[in-house]
């Protein structure tokens, strides 16, 4: 650790905080300023002016937008997420009941997908051009270029409908034993893993191949090192930064994929909560969920950046 690295890291963190602030402005503007008068919409065209004024005052719309934004942001920072407009429950309670489920899903997916993706990515980089590499690459292109719900649908068709191994829908509410938990998790985790592994594998493969084409690897093989030793001892340590970067970036993709997967499997997570909020136009709920997702996304993207900086030896020994 030296000053240059600390300075770079500090810069990245400040950038992340600034973009989070900008994101909060965008979210607030789209959900509660740009669509127009929410009170008018709720009461319809032929509402009396008195009723409109009363509702506006009740919804807090008589305050100018910048003040409302500051108030909203202050609430979020303090952990007060407002009240859901459909259920009249505090949003923080709703979120707290769902967030652990989503985090568990993400953790289990990460646990399975990272080792598989790394193994596949490194193997196909080592045997570049072989049948293994070709099949793995074609498969990952196919998975990445079809919608997530197709992957999930096919998984249900194969494992639940044809083979009867697993239940088609997942309910995390009636879990009593470990076996039931595994069964409930299997389909959503499998579908998410397919997509994430495909993404991560491609990036890992590219990172390792990038190293293998460097001149020092030619030198190593001229010295007579075995291919295994060349990759594991010489190329991999140099590819750790790009690979960590790839892992963080692929995991940030989880945040988008989980929206579809939670809906298709009826999984009681926070993404499902948000989709329901959007279809009922429950703005406080949507705003809070959107901010939670954006924070998660920015954390992962910044983490990817930080890994890249820390792993760069040119910065470490300056």
């Amino acid at each position, binding site marked *: 650790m030296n000053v240059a690295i600390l300075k770079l890291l500090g810069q990245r963190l400040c950038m992340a905080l600034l*973009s*989070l602030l*900008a*994101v909060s402005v*965008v*979210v607030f503007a*789209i*959900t*509660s300023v*740009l*669509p127009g008068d929410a009170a008018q919409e709720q009461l319809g065209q032929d509402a009396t002016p008195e009723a409109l004024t009363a509702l506006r005052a009740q919804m807090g719309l008589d305050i100018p937008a910048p003040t409302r934004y500051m108030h909203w942001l202050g609430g979020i920072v303090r952990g007060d997420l407002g009240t859901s407009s459909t259920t009249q429950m505090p949003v923080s309670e709703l979120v707290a009941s769902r967030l652990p489920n989503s985090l568990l899903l993400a953790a289990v997916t990460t646990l399975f997908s990272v080792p598989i993706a790394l193994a596949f990515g490194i193997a196909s980089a080592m045997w570049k051009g072989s049948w293994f590499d070709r099949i793995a690459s074609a498969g990952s*292109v*196919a998975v990445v*270029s*079809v*919608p*997530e*719900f*197709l992957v999930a*649908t096919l998984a*249900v*068709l194969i494992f*639940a*409908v*044809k083979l009867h191994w697993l239940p*088609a829908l997942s309910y995390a509410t009636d879990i009593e034993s470990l076996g039931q938990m595994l069964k409930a998790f299997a389909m959503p985790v499998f579908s998410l893993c397919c997509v994430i592994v495909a993404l991560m594998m491609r990036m890992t493969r590219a990172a390792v191949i990038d190293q293998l084409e460097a001149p020092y690897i030619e030198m190593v093989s001229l010295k007579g090192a075995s291919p295994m030793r060349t990759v594991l001892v010489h190329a991999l340590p140099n590819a750790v930064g790009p690979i960590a970067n790839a892992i963080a970036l692929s995991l*940030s993709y989880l*945040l*988008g994929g989980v*929206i*579809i997967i939670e*809906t*298709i499997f009826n999984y009681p997570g926070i993404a499902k909560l*948000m*989709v329901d*909020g*959007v*279809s009922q*136009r429950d*703005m406080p709920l*949507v705003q809070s969920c*959107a901010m939670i*997702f*954006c924070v998660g*996304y*920015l954390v992962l*993207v910044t983490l990817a950046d930080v890994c890249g900086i820390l792993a760069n030896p040119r910065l470490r020994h300056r």
Partner: protein
Amino acid sequence: MKTNTSHPTLTPAAASVDTSNTNNASVLTTFLRWLGGFGWSGLIGLAILLFWIAAALFGSSMLTRTLVPDSNVQIFGAISHAHWLGTDYLGRDMFIRVIDGASYTVGVAFVATLLASGLGTMLALFAAASGRWIDSVLSRSLDTITSIPSKMFALIMVAGFGSSVTMLIATASIIYVPGAYRIARSMAININALDYVTVARLRGEGTLYVMRREILPNIAGPMLADLGLRFVYIVLLLAGLSFLGLGVQPPAADWGSLVRENIGSLASASAAVIAPALAIASLTIAVNLVIDNLPGRARRERGVK
């Protein structure tokens, strides 16, 4: 300073125009040779893509309307001679539904792609041609959109403005402008630093001229390949939104909504849910195949690296 250096592409272009005027047969051979450059997988992709474009343009007018079945309504009917892809959850013919859906999936995504790429390219040209201050303001503000996950942004937009076709086009193009901008900008900046652009500026040409005549022709090719990729992203995003019930609203239906409507038949593995899902996959994979096999692409990439 010689003037002909600023138009390096003029001669070959003029030559090809000449031959096309004089000899139709040679145009055909040139076209066939260009087509041959695609290779087998590229040609298959091109065929599938052309099929779906034709379906989107003429499909609904060419099919005879037997959408509502005559007497014996069969829900989730099997594939038969009368119903090529079976029937849906209301007993409507699935083949007609899929062909009708093509105009939404392909059409909406195509318009949104053109908007996103066009706007992104224009902004990038403007940023590259007009100096550091405008460049960094534009780049920073577009970066803000990138730091919201694309599906999340779409959900927020739908929550705020509801969902109509115009809204979907606007949402998809806003989400993918920054990507197009970033790619176009990185190329435009490089070209902006080349000598012939400096020469044009010294000649006294304005920013608009430099953008349009000096930079644009040189980044048009790669931007077209990028357009294809962006089309795939937008198709996937819109299909995902429709699948959540937040995209194209009933009674109109794109392929994503068709999967959603008929998801109940998943347990019986009916064609009603598999056909539209495979239609999306065939479209996106076809576009990918075409882009990967564009004639001269391999040569270009080697040239870049």
